[in-house]
């Protein structure tokens, strides 16, 4: 098992399959929230379902709408299991706080380069927060 410590996290401990890309995340810009897929054609995960996946991405992008949208997605159950980001902006943190959503960020390494796509991972927001790779595909 490999573990990576992070600077900050919130939410519950969750396990799931990782969906990984060196790209950003914005609920407004990147997602078709009805179908539960990445919809921006330029996104490296375009066309792929994010539902119940632990998204491992580079940085929070885009505008302020994600703060409401994470909550809206959560109530419909068409949502990722958690967000793992190298860097966050306030919107992503505010959205996760409002939706009681699990998120972790701030690694000493580029986390998108070290987590294999499809790996079984665990996000542990307890102190100190960390991301564990439990099994690789």
């Amino acid at each position, binding site marked *: 098992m490999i573990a990576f410590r992070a600077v*900050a996290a*919130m939410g519950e401990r969750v396990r799931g399959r990782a969906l990984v890309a060196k790209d*950003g995340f914005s609920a*407004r*810009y*990147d*997602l*078709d929230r009805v179908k539960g897929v990445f*919809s*921006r*054609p*330029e*996104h490296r995960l375009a066309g792929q379902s994010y539902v119940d996946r632990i998204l491992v991405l580079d*940085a*929070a*992008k*885009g*505008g*302020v*709408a*994600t*703060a*409401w*949208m994470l*909550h*809206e997605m*959560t*109530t*419909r159950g068409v949502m990722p299991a958690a967000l793992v980001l190298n*860097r*966050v*902006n*306030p*919107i992503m*943190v*505010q*959205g996760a*706080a*409002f939706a009681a959503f699990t998120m972790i960020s701030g690694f000493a390494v580029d986390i998108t380069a070290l987590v294999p796509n499809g790996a079984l991972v665990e996000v542990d927001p307890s102190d100190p927060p960390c991301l564990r790779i439990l099994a690789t595909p």
Partner: protein
Amino acid sequence: MHLTDEESAMLAGEAGPARQWAIEHQMRVGRYFGAADFVGVSQAHVMADTESLGLAGVEWLERLSALPESERRVRIPTITDPRGTDFAAAARLKQQDWMLALERRAIAAFEALGVLMTDTCINYQTIMPPVLGEHLAYGDTGVVIYANSVLGARTNFEGGPSALAAGLTGRTPRYGFHLPKTRRATLLLRVEHTPRELHDWGALGGIVGRIAGDYWQVPALLGIDRIPTSDELKHFGSALASFGSVALFHMVGVTPEAEHAVDPSHAVTATIAEPDLRAFQASYRNCIDTVDVVVFSSPQLSLLELRDLAAMLDGRRATIPLLVVTSPQVKPDADRFGITSRIEAAGGLVLSGMCFYQSYAREMAEANGWQTLVTSSAKLVNILGGYGYRPALLSMQECVDAACSGRIA
């Protein structure tokens, strides 16, 4: 976080459940960013279109609005970003009844909370422009970056729930751009061609945004050879915030904090010249031949933008839908000065209080058969790809020509 007696009382529920939720929410965010305490804010600006809120968000607002008046009313001036519709034009946009019903419920809830339904993303041009050093809780990235950079105010991106929380508590966690150390330039860029048209300013903002690529980067620009107008900085800032998630820039010789926040001995990270702007614009334009709809929006147009557009449309006739979006504060003046009637005589539709991408853009595309779209807003082309559009970034004149011919020249 250090709490004052008043903040501790809110946390204990002594000011009611709305303020208790608000300060708990703000503390979760503040702890994530290591905030030591709160800072008082004088205004809040809430982004809350119903496409973002969804039914769940509206029901959440309605629960707050059902509280006793003394417990639910905001404590500081709290205003709103654009709504998801212009009720007067919803049928022409083929928006559905359920969207309008949800909007009406959201408006009723906000009004019960004491929020002023200004419905604008250009409040810095129309409502109450902030002043140097003023701490705020602003939503809408374009509003934040203009307030921070052009006016020297202090605000982070505040999403709808957090901006509303600030309205209820009158404060926000002190982190990010409320702190002087975070406001210093982190990368230096040289501009060899000062843009002339609004879509060029947007392209420059998009390029700088891609270079910066991070909320915590503060780009500083050297080489701008004249003082830009408010509309030019509006388009530059909104594109920079959209492409880069950037909340603050400095422009040497232009913005108020550049003199102290920029170290000119820093190495220049990149140089941006006119061919870079043209390549940026061409990267979108290459995708389109025929055009389904022309949109002027994002940010809402100022009175002067509307005046310029009306002049370009005089004596001409749009053959495809031409949508022109402005704020409820500007629209009455445009009506009074005959600007609205000139635009509409040419076949345009002037919309008030909405913003195109915040107004069920995907559903409008499906209902109207819109796929290809042209606009002078770099922010809009960045957003709409995810909504299924193929957008192109053109000058205002080129957009007018496209509206009249249905094609890109």
